[in-house]
């Protein structure tokens, strides 16, 4: 019997990987909670406010996009628009080819994963090197990130040391400090040799056009000091209305993502370098990417576009902790991904329709979301959508409810079923060919059937 792919992935996941993911997520989640409640009188109020600001932006997105574009241009940046992944890749390629550039250093941006940028550029003879340590390791392993913020949460030091040795970065050494120093030494010369630096954007202030990029490692900072051309890839939803709103979002982002008050580097970039500054990009390009975000905006799940990619929902999710990021078969995993990935898939929704089912709807994700996205409600809406689309991946393993609904709306039949169910107390349950019952019985005892007992007790009490 074909079951749910995510459940099957979980069953095959090695215990040490699950343990690494569990420990990494639980630790960050607990520190995040401690920090927020220590430092703010009412963190939940901040989350709701941030959610309202983001919802306002989404519902006025055309205004804010044109405002941001005007500001960026006024500060000397060039603005491009990419309706699809192909257009976004093509825009990057054209910018590089216009400069005769063959080497790019890139900072971490999930949009670049979405559009498949690095493999695309490599096919066109361009070196597109990841500089975030975790993404660098993912790249040399030809792997995929398994967490929004901690891409190699599923890898241990021994695996990394083997990869480094294989890539010629030194004889096997699994000391984390040595690994980091080797990456530092290798990558700093790559920055100096590169022509173009590509980053994402955590926020874009529509008021000033400022692009905000936050990192701990300093990789985006280095690419903006060493190279002469800066390309920003950013989803159209990443706007905030005013600079002052950054004061709220920056207070929430790092605390939610890594349990820090601020990441080490918070960069506010509003154009190419000053003429008086010798280092840095003379050209800045901002590519606004749609890639079906407009489709999500038109749906009844548009709140998901508030997401600021902090990963707090992944860190608290008990399902994510059991299955790990790769189980979601998508760029975006966890609760965020369970909603966003099927939606971004557009016409291919059915291929990802099982993702929203991989949840017990516990609601922990919404409780930690810094922009108060009603994730459980969105998961439910997508389950309804999956059912109506007859998506077979979504249906696998879920008992059909049509007959149940008739039974539960026909009191006479219901009472008969209560009486008849007593047979379950005597039958060998594992042999009954009802898939849902077998799935239950395989792992858990079944309580004694007492159908009708309470009703009889209630009736008897009323007798004089």
């Amino acid at each position, binding site marked *: 019997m074909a079951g749910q792919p995510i459940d099957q992935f979980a069953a095959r996941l090695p215990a040490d990987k699950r343990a690494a993911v569990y420990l990494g997520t639980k630790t960050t989640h607990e520190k995040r909670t401690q920090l927020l409640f*220590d430092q*703010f009188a009412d963190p939940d*109020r*901040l989350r709701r*406010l941030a959610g309202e*600001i983001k*919802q*306002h932006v989404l*519902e*006025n*997105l*055309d205004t804010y*996009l*044109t405002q941001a574009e005007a500001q960026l241009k006024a500060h*000397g940046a060039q603005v491009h*628009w*990419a*309706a699809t992944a192909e257009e976004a890749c093509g*825009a990057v390629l054209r910018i590089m080819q216009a400069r005769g550039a063959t080497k790019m250093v890139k900072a971490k941006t999930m949009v670049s994963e979405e559009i498949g940028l690095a493999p695309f550029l490599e096919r066109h003879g361009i070196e597109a090197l990841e*500089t*975030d*340590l975790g993404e660098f390791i993912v790249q040399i392993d030809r792997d995929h990130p398994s967490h929004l913020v*901690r891409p190699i949460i599923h890898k241990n*030091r021994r695996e990394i040391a083997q990869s480094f040795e294989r890539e010629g970065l030194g004889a096997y050494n699994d000391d*984390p400090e040595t*690994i980091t*120093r080797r990456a530092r030494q290798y*990558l700093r010369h790559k*920055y*100096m040799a590169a022509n173009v630096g590509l980053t994402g954007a955590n926020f874009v202030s529509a008021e000033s056009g400022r692009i905000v990029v936050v990192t*701990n*490692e*300093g*990789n985006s900072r*280095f690419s*903006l*000091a*060493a190279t002469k051309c800066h390309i920003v890839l950013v989803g159209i939803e990443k706007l905030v209305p005013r600079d*002052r709103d*950054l*004061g*709220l979002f920056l207070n929430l982002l790092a605390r939610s993502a*890594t349990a*820090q*008050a*601020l*990441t*080490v*580097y*918070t960069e*506010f970039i*509003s*154009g190419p*370098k*000053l003429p008086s*500054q*010798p280092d840095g990009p003379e050209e800045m390009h901002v590519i*606004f990417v749609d890639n079906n975000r*407009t489709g999500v*905006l038109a749906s009844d799940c548009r709140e998901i576009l508030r997401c600021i990619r902090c990963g707090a929902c992944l860190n608290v999710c008990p399902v994510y902790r059991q299955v790990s990021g790769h189980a979601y078969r998508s760029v975006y995993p966890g609760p965020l991904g369970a909603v966003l990935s099927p939606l971004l898939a557009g016409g291919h929704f059915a291929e990802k329709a099982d993702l929203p089912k991989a949840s017990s709807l516990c609601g922990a994700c919404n409780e930690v979301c810094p922009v108060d996205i009603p994730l459980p409600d969105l998961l439910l809406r997508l389950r309804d959508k999956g059912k109506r689309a007859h998506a077979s991946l979504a249906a696998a393993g879920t008992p059909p409810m049509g007959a149940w609904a008739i039974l539960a709306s026909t009191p006479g039949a219901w009472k008969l079923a209560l009486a008849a169910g007593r047979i379950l107390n005597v039958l060998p349950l594992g042999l009954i060919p009802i898939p849902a019952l077998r799935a239950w019985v395989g792992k858990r005892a079944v309580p004694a059937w007492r159908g009708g007992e309470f009703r009889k007790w209630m009736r008897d009490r009323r007798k004089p």
Partner: protein
Amino acid sequence: MSDSREQILSRVRAALAPLPRRAPLPDWEPALVALRGQRADADPWALFAERLKAVNGTPLTSVAELAALLEAEGWRHGYCDPQLWPSLREAFPASFIVETEFDRTRIDDYQFGITAATGAIAETGTLILSDRDTSRRLGALAPWVHIATLRREQIFADLSAAVAALPADPNVIWVTGPSKTADVEGILIEGVHGPGLQIALLVDR
């Protein structure tokens, strides 16, 4: 490509057209993000220095202290903003080689870089850098040690004040301690692409 612009914007408008009304922009006061337990310290440097240490940064109050620290570690070759060097050079022993031009073909020669900060944030121990005040972006970033010179009156109390005063500069960077990563098994390692030692040097007028 301007077709794509029109296509995207018209899709946005079409997506939003059915909404009966649009969510309003809520007003909010910076006091909402004030941190609990903040002391109204008379000396902003004292609070800044305490918070800088909490993020493994290094506050110093004299050039002599700085020179001694560098010498003790054997870091004698560095870069300094030419406008700053005249006021600092006296305290540096003759054995030091301090260049006031940064040669990007020899980035590994520079063990330290000294540039001027644009400001600081006391509540987080953050240094603020900008294109205008940073003589060389690489000088502040590539060496293992970065020293940012700071005056007391440049220090903002909190994040909201610093946001309100964001300068009209294309590259403003908030630096909160030395660069770091926890990508390898969640173990914190300092000194990744940016400096491994982040110093703030108080230079009173």
